């Protein structure tokens, strides 16, 4: 059999961001994959030396456009724990609402890209059309479509009034109806199944040992979601992780699709239970100590390690993003896959190189 090495990326039609994989093939079958990253590494963690701990909120928001709000939420949550303060209940609920809206527009973006990766152009446009409704909500409630910048250390700096809550509810009704209509042509479609079922399979033991996170982990039957740790409003809201067991690309598709519907329910529940009260508590001290904090990003577990010594600048901000964790599982998915299926398998982990190259 002919053995060939083929470069996949860093510029590739299915990759919105640069990731390079060196694929070792025997005929059309992948035998081995080796990643190369670093094309757009920005060194944002280093900025903590020149930006104070409040300014770092705006820095961490820029780690990733798609989940900017959740980065800031995780950072603020960690600093609040270090400072011994608690964000007011209304702020915790508002964070939950905006973070689930972020999860929805991220998953819809991915669904569109995944469909596009399979050549399913009409579904790509349909998913992104639905996503625009969520982007409209972001813009109307925060002033920005992507970097919503609602978090501050101690709470949030924007509120939602009753009219906005009713309007968001009506948008969610539309989105839910449109998503349910998507199930047959996207999840149950014959061609989609042919491209995804049995591709890039990992067992529960493999994903766990390889340190996978998020839908990549849950699609192999591991019921682990950081929202189960009860951060923000999840200590009062009912939450059950979405789990599939097949461990293939189709299972990862189903997890994200079902998480979209689950996020709609979470936002509705949070809006119904939104408590009255303050948006933020005052921060009087400077942080000191060491903390690890985690939240669930659309792509999985996000971890921040923060270290401070009572100065206005933190000593260290370390960010472990879910795509960084999902690269080793991707390397295990690829051997045995046909070259034509590599784009679908790569997209199935929802790679965010912006997060990885923070």
């Amino acid at each position: 059999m002919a053995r060939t090495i083929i470069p996949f990326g860093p510029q590739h039609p299915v990759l919105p961001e640069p990731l390079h994989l060196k694929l070792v093939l025997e005929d059309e079958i992948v035998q081995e994959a080796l990643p190369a990253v670093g094309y757009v590494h920005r060194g944002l963690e280093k900025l903590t030396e020149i930006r104070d701990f409040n300014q770092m909120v705006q820095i961490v928001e820029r780690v990733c456009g798609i989940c900017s709000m959740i980065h800031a939420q995780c950072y603020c949550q960690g600093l609040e724990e270090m400072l011994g303060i608690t964000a007011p209940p209304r702020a915790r609920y508002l964070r939950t609402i905006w973070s689930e809206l972020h999860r929805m527009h991220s998953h819809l973006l991915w669904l569109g890209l995944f469909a596009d990766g399979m050549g399913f152009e009409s579904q790509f446009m349909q998913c992104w059309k639905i996503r625009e409704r969520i982007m409209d909500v972001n813009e109307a409630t925060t002033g920005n479509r992507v970097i919503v910048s609602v978090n501050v250390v101690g709470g949030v700096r924007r509120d939602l009034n009753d009219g906005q809550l009713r309007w968001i509810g009506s948008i969610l009704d539309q989105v839910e109806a449109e998503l349910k209509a998507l199930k047959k042509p996207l999840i149950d479609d014959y061609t989609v199944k042919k491209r995804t079922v049995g591709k890039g399979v990992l067992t529960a033991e493999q994903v766990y040992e390889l340190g996978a996170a998020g839908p990549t982990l849950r699609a192999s039957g591991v019921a682990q979601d950081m929202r189960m740790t009860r951060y923000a409003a999840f200590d009062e809201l009912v939450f059950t992780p979405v789990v599939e067991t097949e461990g293939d690309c189709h299972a990862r598709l189903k997890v994200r699709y079902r998480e979209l519907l689950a996020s709609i329910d979470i936002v509705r529940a949070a809006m119904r239970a939104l408590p009255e009260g303050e948006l933020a508590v005052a921060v009087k001290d400077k942080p000191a100590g060491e903390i690890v904090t985690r939240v669930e990003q659309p792509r999985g577990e996000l971890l921040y390690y923060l270290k401070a010594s009572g100065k206005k600048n933190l000593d260290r901000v370390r960010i472990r993003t879910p795509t960084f964790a999902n690269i080793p599982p991707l390397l295990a998915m690829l051997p045995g896959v046909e070259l034509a299926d590599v784009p679908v398998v790569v997209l199935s982990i929802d790679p965010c190189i912006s997060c990885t190259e923070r």
Partner: protein
Amino acid sequence: MQNVTPVTIAELKTACQAAKAEGCRLVTLSCAELDAETVDIIYHFDKDLSLKHYRLTAKKCEPVPSISDIYFAALLVENEIQDLFGLSFSGLVVDYKQTLYLEAEVRKTPFCKYSVAIANKA
């Protein structure tokens, strides 16, 4: 930060093997410079949504044993630490030799002024 166990270089691999045998998932490693000569490397493990951490205080001039043979997931983060902090990991299953993020001709590391790995690279 709770549930932190200090480990030495000699104890590190045994401790990681024990963590794996317990069913812990390696979340990541965090590295922070302590002073001109030492760094902290913190190994974060998760089991049933609870974290535990091993803290290794290492001299910058001493190679740190890689745990990528125990946890393959450590491969990227150990290479990242080599690039950003200039530390050297011995026994990495794939060693990018400080070129994961940095170009081959780069002789400075972003997070540490002194770098053994980069000195070796030169």
